């Protein structure tokens, strides 16, 4: 398949499939049956998207970025976009399988699948936008679909509240990004990322303001502290599959959008790297401290996402500020790992939530006490959840340790005392995070089963299958972290080449 055709298919397939999925499900429901066609069509669409992705991957990895122009819109699939597209396709496929039993019989089930596929399509598009405004449009499509998915249980007060908070904060962030785009456009007369990069040779107040607006506007979606307040509500109130998507890929897509937008302003200021590092430190400490005091499992994982964004920001900050490709490679590797680990954590917690509460018609949240003794009754799910949290906490033979380690090593490559201190701080944070992950495992294996667990329903095969796949992936990547080098390395080299055009960060 020719690369341009593959890119067209990859972008068109989910967006065209989304309304078809809705109609197929809706018609079947009207005929008095279930929304089953929507379930299977969404999984099929995402599996089918793997075919153009494969061809595109071969083309990008062997021949460099693939360009495509539609009218005046230019799209470019490079290493970074490919990594995002791959992560999104894999995780969304697993989530769509997981959701089949989880969402079965919910009101508006067909909308769920249509929106899920549309959200995945928007994120793939976001990865290959080559124009600031186009980037914003994809970002907005992703955001709007995620609003609807966060507030999917629209009869639930908590879900509505989370949806409203998320919507208002995101809308303000989007407006700030637009103003930033207006600044860039007024100054350079172009929006194409390469042309903006070529035109922004020296720093002017307008371009600095644009960079700050991008940092804040996209920072809302990236959950940079103190713009993270929507995240714990949205992640804990959404259906579990959507929590996995939000935590696993949506906030990362926001991060990639932010880095792309800042990338074209790289020569304007040498301090973007310092800002990213500072936010990284804040994210780690606030995320971890808040996660420590949570009693609800999904809310704890949500705060842990805040702290994991911190590790990624440290990796990218080292790459942006000091031109160290290893930092970006670590950041991208952690991005992929986090999608697997947090996807697994939310889906495993979701499987337990479903078995213990949702299957009995209750929408109570899953508390830590509910997990007591869960390993006796749910051995596979408990094992999956344990692997996920131990990997998130950074225990050595699991994948989370490997990507964190790569980021920390990159930090020491800077030979800068400030960054080295920051890396030590990050490592201490990683240890601190075990303080809330380890008791979780302890509860499941060492405690007597709680009455809730004893009364729970079984976990169905379709729910367990994605958990097993992800558990294996986390373990395999822990033993052979080099497996991902083929993609993280080109992405990192490309990433650093954008930023290294600017003056190196003199001091932190």
């Amino acid at each position, binding site marked *: 398949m020719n690369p341009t055709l593959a890119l067209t298919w990859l972008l068109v397939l989910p967006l065209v499939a989304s309304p078809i999925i809705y109609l197929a499900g809706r018609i079947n429901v009207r005929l008095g049956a279930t929304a089953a066609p929507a379930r299977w069509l969404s999984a099929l669409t995402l599996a089918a998207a793997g075919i153009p992705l494969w061809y595109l991957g071969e083309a990008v990895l062997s021949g460099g970025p693939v360009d495509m122009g539609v009218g005046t819109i230019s799209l470019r699939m490079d290493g970074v976009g490919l990594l995002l597209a791959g992560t999104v396709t894999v995780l969304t496929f697993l989530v769509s399988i997981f959701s089949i039993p989880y969402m079965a019989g919910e009101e508006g089930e067909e909308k769920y699948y249509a929106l899920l596929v549309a959200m995945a399509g928007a994120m793939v598009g976001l990865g290959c936008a080559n124009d600031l405004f186009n980037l914003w449009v994809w970002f907005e499509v992703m955001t709007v679909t995620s609003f609807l998915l966060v507030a999917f249980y629209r009869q639930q007060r908590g879900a509505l*509240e989370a949806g409203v908070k998320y919507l*208002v904060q995101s*809308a*303000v962030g989007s407006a700030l990004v637009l*103003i930033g785009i207006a600044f860039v456009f007024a100054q350079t007369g172009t929006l194409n990322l390469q042309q903006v990069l070529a035109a922004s040779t020296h720093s002017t107040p307008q371009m600095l303001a644009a960079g700050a607006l991008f940092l804040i506007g996209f920072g809302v979606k990236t959950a940079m502290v103190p713009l993270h307040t929507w995240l*714990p509500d949205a992640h804990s109130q959404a259906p579990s599959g959507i929590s996995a998507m939000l935590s696993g890929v949506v906030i990362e897509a926001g991060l990639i959008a932010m880095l792309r937008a800042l990338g074209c302003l790289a020569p304007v200021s040498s301090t973007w790297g310092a800002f990213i590092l500072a936010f990284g430190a804040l994210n780690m400490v606030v995320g971890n401290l808040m996660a420590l005091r949570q009693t609800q499992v999904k809310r704890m994982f949500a705060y842990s996402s805040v702290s994991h964004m911190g590790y990624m920001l440290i990796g990218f900050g080292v790459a942006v500020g000091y031109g160290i490709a290893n930092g970006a490679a670590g950041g991208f590797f952690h991005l992929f790992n986090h999608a697997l680990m947090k996807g697994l954590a939310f889906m495993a917690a979701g499987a337990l939530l479903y078995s213990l509460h949702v299957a009995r018609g209750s929408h109570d949240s899953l508390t830590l006490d509910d997990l007591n003794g869960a390993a006796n009754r749910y051995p596979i799910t408990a094992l999956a959840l344990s692997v996920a949290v131990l990997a998130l906490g950074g225990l050595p033979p699991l994948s989370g340790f490997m990507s964190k380690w790569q980021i920390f090593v990159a930090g020491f490559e800077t030979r800068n005392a400030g960054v080295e201190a920051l890396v030590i701080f990050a490592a201490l944070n990683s240890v601190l995070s075990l303080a809330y992950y380890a008791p979780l495992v302890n509860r499941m294996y060492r405690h007597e089963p709680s009455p809730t667990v004893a009364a729970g329903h079984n976990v169905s095969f379709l729910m367990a299958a994605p958990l097993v796949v992800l558990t294996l992936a986390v373990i395999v990547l822990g033993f052979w972290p080099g497996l991902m080098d083929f993609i993280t390395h080109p992405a990192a080299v490309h990433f650093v080449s954008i930023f290294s055009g600017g003056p190196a960060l003199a001091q932190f």
Partner: protein
Amino acid sequence: MSLSLPLLSAVAVLGLLGIGLLGLLVTRNLIKVVVGMQVLVKGAMLALVLAGKLSGQIQTGQTLALTVIVADTIVSVVALAFAVQVRRQFGTLDLQALSTLRR
């Protein structure tokens, strides 16, 4: 000092952004929050048109603004749909009621 059109537009952009942000900060009614968001985005739209004028590409600037109108309408529709649901479930549009999720 004479007021040129770009300068006037720039003042209007700042005014709209200021009013929008102030509106978001001070109101507690969900519908008014939506209005505040709208005013804020209108400022951003005018900024895009102004940017097109300043860089000599009026058409592109207006095209961008048109696209933003579409996106902004969708966001507002979703926000108002949420407002309807909030009124149904909570019986009020006061944002103070929307703080059951603590910490």
